[in-house]
């Protein structure tokens, strides 16, 4: 796909830097709150390490495009512009949470942002992405669905069925594999006959957009932009971003003591470091601006935690509400 690469301007790069740092700070704080037993849900899957992939890919979308992901969803929600306050409130199971305290960490969503949610059955959201994309085609809209999935999701039936359906129905979906090298504890090479996951595209006759460095927000943005425009004009496309998660699969999992060296290697190419390098390499005297962003982000997350802590718990009425749609017939 030879397309002209648009030079990313400074304001945009700074915004991406801010988002990356915001996600990291949000996740670090979630980790702390979990240990302090203020976030009490057993499942908490942190996005730390993946930030450049989420931010770069979501930046490739227009407002009317759609995003859907799995349970490692905090970073995607933040990248899509969802307010950290109701996100943090959801972590703490508060009534003011994005999902009213009923979804939790794995089920964040914001309809107004066309963020269709985090889904916690591996691969389960893939056909949903196909269905959302079908609506776009059906109503002659040009909206694209960006569907994030983990490397682990490429080995269950949902991947096969949903990607194939997107091919035979020519659906505008970007399948973006966030390959963080491990499905929970199992390395990709152990789980996948073809560990170069983007090559799966060939089997379905869809566009193989290749592999991109998931630590580099600009490269992710460029690859995702091409993929998004391809999907908009033509149909499904598969893109693979190579990244690494810093924490356990979930925070309750064992930290990987046996992977210390590997983790250190990846942290040397941390999305925050890489983005800082891009900025300092291109612009003079930008450090002060970056430090200022770091400080602002801390305040934003402080406020989000405060907001969440001061929010009320859901009530009995919330417990029984929204089991069914009660108010309307189509």
């Amino acid at each position, binding site marked *: 796909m030879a397309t002209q690469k648009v030079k990313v301007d400074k304001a945009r790069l700074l915004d991406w830097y801010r988002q990356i740092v915001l996600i990291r700070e949000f996740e670090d704080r979630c980790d702390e709150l979990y240990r302090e037993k203020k976030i009490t849900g057993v499942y908490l899957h942190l996005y730390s390490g993946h930030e450049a992939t989420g931010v770069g890919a979501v930046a490739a979308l227009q407002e009317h495009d759609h995003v859907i992901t799995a349970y490692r969803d905090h970073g995607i929600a933040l990248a899509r512009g969802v307010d950290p306050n109701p996100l943090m409130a959801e972590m703490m199971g508060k009534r003011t949470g994005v999902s009213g305290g009923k979804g939790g960490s794995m089920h964040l969503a914001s309809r107004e942002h066309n963020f269709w949610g985090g889904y916690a059955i591996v691969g389960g959201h893939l056909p949903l992405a196909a269905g*959302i994309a079908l609506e776009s085609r059906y109503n002659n809209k040009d909206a694209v669905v960006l569907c994030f999935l983990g490397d682990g999701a490429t080995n269950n039936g949902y991947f096969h069925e949903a990607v194939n359906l997107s091919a035979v129905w020519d659906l505008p979906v970007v399948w973006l594999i966030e390959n963080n090298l491990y499905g929970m504890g199992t390395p990709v090479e152990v789980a996948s006959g073809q560990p170069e996951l983007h090559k799966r595209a060939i089997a379905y006759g869809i566009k193989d957009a290749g592999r991109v460095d998931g630590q580099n927000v600009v490269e992710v943005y460029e690859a995702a932009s091409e993929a998004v425009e391809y999907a908009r004009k033509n149909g499904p496309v598969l893109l693979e971003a190579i990244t690494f998660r810093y924490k356990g699969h979930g925070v309750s999992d064992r930290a990987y003591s046996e992977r210390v060296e590997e983790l250190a290697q990846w942290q040397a190419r941390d999305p925050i470091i890489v983005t800082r390098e891009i900025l300092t390499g291109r612009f003079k005297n930008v450090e002060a601006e970056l430090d200022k962003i770091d400080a602002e982000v801390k305040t934003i997350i402080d406020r989000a935690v405060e907001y969440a802590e001061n929010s009320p718990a859901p009530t009995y009425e919330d417990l029984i509400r929204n089991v069914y749609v009660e108010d309307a*017939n189509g």
Partner: protein
Amino acid sequence: MAEKNLPMREALRAALHEEMVRDERVFVMGEEVGAWQGTHRVTRGFLEEFGPKRVRDTPISEMAIAGAAVGAAMAGLRPVAEIMTINFAFLAFDALINHAAKIHYMFNGQFRVPMVLRAATGWGNQATATHSHTPEPVFAHFPGLYVAMPSTPADAKGMLKAAIRDDNPVLFSEVIALYPKPGPVPDDPDFLIPIGKSDIKREGDDVTIVTIGRGVEWSLQAAESLAKEGIECEVIDLRWLRPLDMEPVIESFKKTNRCVVVEECLPHFSLGSEIAAQIQEKAFDYMDAPVKRVSAMDVPLPYARDIELMALPDTQKVINAVKEVL
């Protein structure tokens, strides 16, 4: 209002056809629904009339059929997805239970899932263990999903139209053995049978028979036969396993003090289990006999005709059960 005599498959076809004409957002998808004209001929002629946008053949991909229907419904379409037989709906179980039934709740009302999943159900013709399920109670276990099972062509039409117009996900179970059976069907394009509304198919004072789907036919035949012996059965067709319309059942039970549940499904954690539980909770003081269940036997269904039929409910078994509770 005018009516036509139609087999159930044609009543279903009329319902779908009317709703597709009425609402551009309604479309059908599934295996063989288009070019092949529908495995059960319910979508016969649809591809020619509505075109491939609204009549969508799918690969053999039950997980994706159900899951894509969920996504399309969330985005504002009104998919009527067909799973060829309910036996294959086990492959779609996750999409139905974890997503269709949960999304409205777990995202606190941000999304609606107005989809219908039609599936042909029931045994017969020696279809064997994997192709003879009537597992509707399994699906009805979960809040967030409605489960329909019509017994007559008119009910089939009115219930399917109501299901399509509702904003909640519905598993719509169609008994294969009933597809060819005719009955009067209203022409009215707004003929709807409300979701969760049962129907007293026969009135009587001696025993309450609670049933659904194909069980209605056995129950009515049994009631007719028993009436010759002076035993009057009230036959309540629940029509929906969820929402479960218990009020008329309890009312009837307070009159008859006796109940037989007739179901095609297996007895373990069945429709009968639920009805019996609720009767003892809500009308304990009115009980003159234990609630009796007529279900399939608790075995996988075999191939051989002789033992297949042995394992299944029929009219005679209903008659016997009624006599046991008297």
